[in-house]
């Protein structure tokens, strides 16, 4: 009723749009810039990307995005619907524009040092009892916005988000690379972001629930945009998907909707002041999209997480919250090669992989699912194992189920098990099945708001114990490692464990999921299917960014003379990532710098092709390169050659169907 009354009142006022809120309640801040009535423009620092926010005559908010002369987002709705107030009819309170600049260093990520620079406009609107802030940012590599809902009296409480109105109206003729929400309806609403990305027209998205990130090519331009979210952890909100509403079917207008991967009917209840996750559009050329760190840059210069009692801690205890103990490192992982034949509680197998890690100079080994059945790895066994590994300079990560092992989300159980494992010498956890598929009647799963909170609890409790985390059966990255750098690896990708991966999966993942953060693809050496070659797999070992890249082949494989040195050099952290060439559905080539070394790698799709590699990104001087390419007529073998490369070098690499290549360059 209140909503209707206000709607009538606003309609009476419409036209004059005297929405400057005179007499409508307390003002909060004096704006730096007077309100611009009904539209506001925000541009990127380089001026090439612009967002326009507007309010129509009925008081509804919308926005558009333009890159140069290319429409990236057509007029699209903005806003939230909450039970406690009518945020559909708003008055303008203030608008404030500021420049946000700074830099930060990464422990893991595409670049070890990142600088950020954007223009931010915060437009404050007022309803009856709440302010709605729209915070719009535009960077050179994309745009992002989020909502803040605050009570006019500054108080705290609970509100219910009934619907998020945010839309992304894709320009006509756009092509979309999307990962659909797929679940087995017979068993539940489970989704762990492990489907393939497929191209479809924006006009053919009816009935599809699309997960983030979603890449699209704006119309027939060369401008791409990767739509996703950031800042989910800590927001109190659920994970979101994209879907055409019934009235927008066939239009390519996608609305941000509540996760369908859920154990709950609705969980829009959250605390206020409420700050939503960022809605992000990484926008520009493919080079811009691939190299972007926008999802993580949105955290500005945020500090790593510290507990509430931080100030009362000793200096020694405080020191651990600099997270210098977080060590990226390659991981020996035997589950994939031995699943079904040798159980994870086989002592000899696990010792073999500790020895492999030690021999290869890798930092970690994993005891995967089933390790703690039987008595081999009871407290004494696990301790002895960790001691053995420690003597070899190898750290131990143990697998666990995010719900089943912890009473479907009981913090005290989590803490006691982490304590137990930590006391045995365990360095981290590989925590699985956040989708809830193994749990008996979980109260939350997938990307329910309560599950997002459970993720946060896990990150915090592992941080307290100086343990790293590798999330499996998980959701997409939303920049969490900017606050929790111990979250060093993540699945949420269609990986080798399927054993039927082909190049149509890997190539497109580079342009989509791979843009957002670490990917635990678990590369092998000898391909598991006919859809990838050995050189393709070797390239994947460096192309997927990951804090603990899991090497999944049999231990003897890595001992082979031809490839041994390469796998000893595979990086877990990198200083720089450069996109070289490629297109979705076709191929992908990139260069990765680690100190003075470079890895240059490419993966190919279904059609044989050549890739031109221009090494001008190299610094001065000569580099010695080891180059691995596919052996002729044998997808399971590579040829190796040595050569000298300089910044003047240009090479043409022939890639067979599903093939690849990888260079390892070191300063001569």
């Amino acid at each position: 009723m209140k909503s209707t009354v206000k709607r009538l009142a606003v309609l009476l006022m419409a036209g004059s749009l005297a929405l400057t809120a005179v007499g409508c309640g307390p003002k909060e801040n004096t704006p730096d810039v007077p309100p611009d009535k009904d539209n506001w423009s925000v541009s990127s620092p380089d001026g090439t990307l612009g967002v326009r926010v507007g309010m129509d005559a009925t008081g509804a908010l919308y926005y558009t995005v333009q890159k140069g002369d290319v429409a990236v987002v057509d007029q699209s709705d903005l806003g939230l619907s909450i039970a406690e107030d009518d945020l559909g009819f708003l008055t303008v309170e203030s608008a404030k524009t500021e420049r946000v600049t700074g830099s930060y260093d990464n422990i893991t990520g595409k670049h070890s040092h990142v600088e950020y620079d954007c223009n931010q406009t915060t437009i404050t609107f007022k309803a009856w009892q709440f302010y709605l802030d729209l915070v719009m940012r535009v960077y050179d590599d994309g745009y992002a916005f989020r909502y803040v809902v605050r009570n006019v009296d500054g108080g705290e409480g609970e509100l219910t988000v009934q619907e998020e109105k945010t839309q992304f109206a894709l320009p006509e003729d756009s092509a979309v690379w999307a990962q659909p929400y797929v679940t087995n309806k017979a068993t539940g609403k489970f989704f762990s972001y492990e489907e393939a990305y497929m191209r479809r027209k924006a006009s053919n998205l009816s009935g599809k629930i699309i997960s983030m990130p979603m890449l699209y090519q704006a119309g027939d331009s060369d401008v791409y945009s990767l739509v996703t979210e950031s800042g989910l952890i800590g927001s109190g909100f659920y994970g979101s998907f994209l879907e055409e509403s019934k009235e927008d079917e066939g239009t390519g207008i996608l609305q941000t909707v509540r996760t369908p991967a859920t154990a709950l009917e609705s969980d829009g209840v959250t605390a206020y002041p409420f700050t939503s996750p960022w809605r992000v559009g990484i926008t520009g050329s493919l080079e811009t999209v691939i190299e972007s760190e926008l999802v993580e840059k949105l955290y500005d210069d945020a500090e790593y997480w510290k507990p509430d009692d931080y100030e009362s801690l000793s200096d020694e205890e405080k020191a651990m919250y600099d997270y210098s103990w977080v060590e990226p490192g390659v991981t020996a992982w035997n589950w994939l090669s031995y699943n079904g034949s040798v159980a994870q509680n086989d002592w000899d197998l696990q010792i073999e992989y500790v020895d492999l890690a030690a021999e290869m100079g890798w930092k970690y080994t994993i005891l995967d699912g089933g390790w703690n059945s039987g008595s081999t790895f009871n407290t004494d066994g696990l301790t002895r194992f960790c001691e053995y590994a420690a003597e070899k300079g190898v750290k131990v990560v143990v697998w666990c189920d995010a719900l089943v092992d912890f009473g479907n989300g009981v913090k005290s159980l989590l803490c006691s098990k982490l304590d137990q494992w930590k006391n045995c010498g365990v360095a981290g956890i590989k925590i699985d099945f956040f989708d809830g598929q193994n749990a008996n009647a979980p109260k939350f799963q997938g990307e329910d708001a309560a599950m997002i909170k459970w993720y946060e609890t896990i990150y915090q409790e592992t941080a307290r114990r100086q343990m790293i985390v590798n999330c499996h059966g998980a959701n997409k990255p939303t920049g969490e490692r900017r606050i929790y750098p111990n979250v060093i690896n993540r699945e949420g990708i269609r990986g080798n464990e399927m054993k039927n991966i082909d190049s149509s999966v890997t190539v497109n993942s580079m342009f989509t999921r791979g843009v957002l953060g670490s990917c635990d693809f678990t590369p092998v050496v000898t391909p598991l299917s006919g859809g990838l070659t050995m050189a393709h797999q070797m390239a994947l070992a460096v192309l997927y960014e990951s804090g603990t890249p899991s090497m999944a082949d049999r231990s003897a494989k890595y001992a082979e003379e031809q490839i041994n040195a390469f796998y000893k050099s595979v990086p877990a952290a990198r200083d720089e990532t450069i996109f070289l060439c490629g297109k979705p559905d076709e191929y992908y080539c990139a260069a990765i710098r680690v100190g003075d070394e470079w890895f240059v790698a490419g993966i190919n799709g279904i059609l044989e092709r050549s890739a031109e590699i221009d090494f001008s990104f190299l610094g001065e001087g000569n580099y010695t390169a080891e180059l691995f390419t596919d052996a002729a007529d044998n997808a399971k073998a590579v040829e190796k050659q040595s050569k000298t490369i300089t910044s003047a070098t240009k090479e043409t690499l022939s890639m067979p169907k599903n093939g690849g290549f990888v260079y390892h360059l070191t300063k001569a």
Partner: protein
Amino acid sequence: MKKKILSLIFALVCLFAFVGCGGTGRPSGNDGNTIENPWWTTEGTLQKENGEVVFDEVEIDLTTVVNGEDLAAFNQIIAQFNAEYRGKISVLTTSINQDTFETTVGQQIINNSNAPDLIMSHQKGHKAFAANNLIQPFDEAMEESGIEISMNDYSAGLAQYSDLGYEGYTFGIPADAQSMVVYYNKNLLSKYGNQLPSTHSELIELCERVAKGENIKPIAATTSLGFFPDYVFSTAIVQNGGELYDEKTYYANWASDAENLQAFKAAAQSLRDIFYHTPTLSELNKSEAESLNNFLNDKALFLFGLPWNLNSILEAYGQGHGNLTMDAVKENYIGAASVANWFALESGTEDGNKIFGDSHFFAISNTVTDINKKAAICEFVKWFTQTGSVGTDWAEAGHISASTIIANDPEYTGNSVVTDYIIPFYQDINYFVCAGNTPYYTDMATQIRTLFVDLMSESTGEKDESIIKSAQDSLNAVIDFF
């Protein structure tokens, strides 16, 4: 009674997948059904240039039941098509496990929500789809587009199912066939005469010699795997002259028809000859891993396995024998055999050549109305089922082609996987038998599995008749319920 209730519950679950779709009620059988009121519609104008159909960015959503080791090969084939037809037609795939395929896809089509345009699933499910108006025939699109897919170009054994009993219509296009196949240990066979058995008695005689000579159980089989009763037991039935249902009434006549009863009893006996032999030739209820490990460790002469696991079996054998190359394993260690004639107690019959299994058929969802999309579907299906390189790639993933065009293509006939494994697995695909046009195949398969367990729990055939009759009555009760 408990079985009867369970069957009814299961049938209800299946039925509810299609409730509300305006189905035709209980199908009346293969009586040359005519379709007086087509339930499908066609809209739009076919785009043509110079009399030829042209495609402009047509997207086809394909949902497939392919979900195993062969999925990579399938995706590769789709990627190849999309690359060849870029800008014209693209196929987007979703894979759904066979356990929930019919329910999930049926609901999607009924609700017209996220429904596929094209289905690639087992032929046995298609009659139920058609009976409930969920799929439509290819004919109109073929005629308008001139993209003809003639059933004369497919194995007669499979092409016979394309009309689903609706005379004059093409509801399904066969792609392949698959059943449980036989891998054999070349060294062991060589040691015992190097001659594959071609009759049931030869099979038993050979296995007996191997069992005694090697002190092993020469047949590695996993009877607890649903594929065993689905494929092997059903194969034993048809090889002994049995029929799984009356094609006019769809009722089971397993005991009520005297000849059929004898065939079912012979099928049971042919399997008892293996599982209750002295010395033991094979064991019931072995786990899949145990059976496989026995074969991979040279402790079995034969492995009843699945054709799409060919590569992993060869690779695992190579790894377990000093990292042999795949080529070496193929050449010297693991061969392929067919179960044709292995279960027919009477040798030399034509029925003995039969192998029962599944066949992937393509079918168009009833939700497709645009003639351009229907034509694009014809183009894709023709490409998939008649292109030699595609058939070869699909064969390498374990599937014999249903197409006679592919079967005669030099790339296919010259491929070593085809010649050394795929062809020997099946011998003559014209004798391949599917569940056919019963809409009650799910209920029938359930009863066949139950019947197999009940029969094999008896070491003699004394109770066979009553067991078979009970299973027959249970199935018919389910059919009566509808």
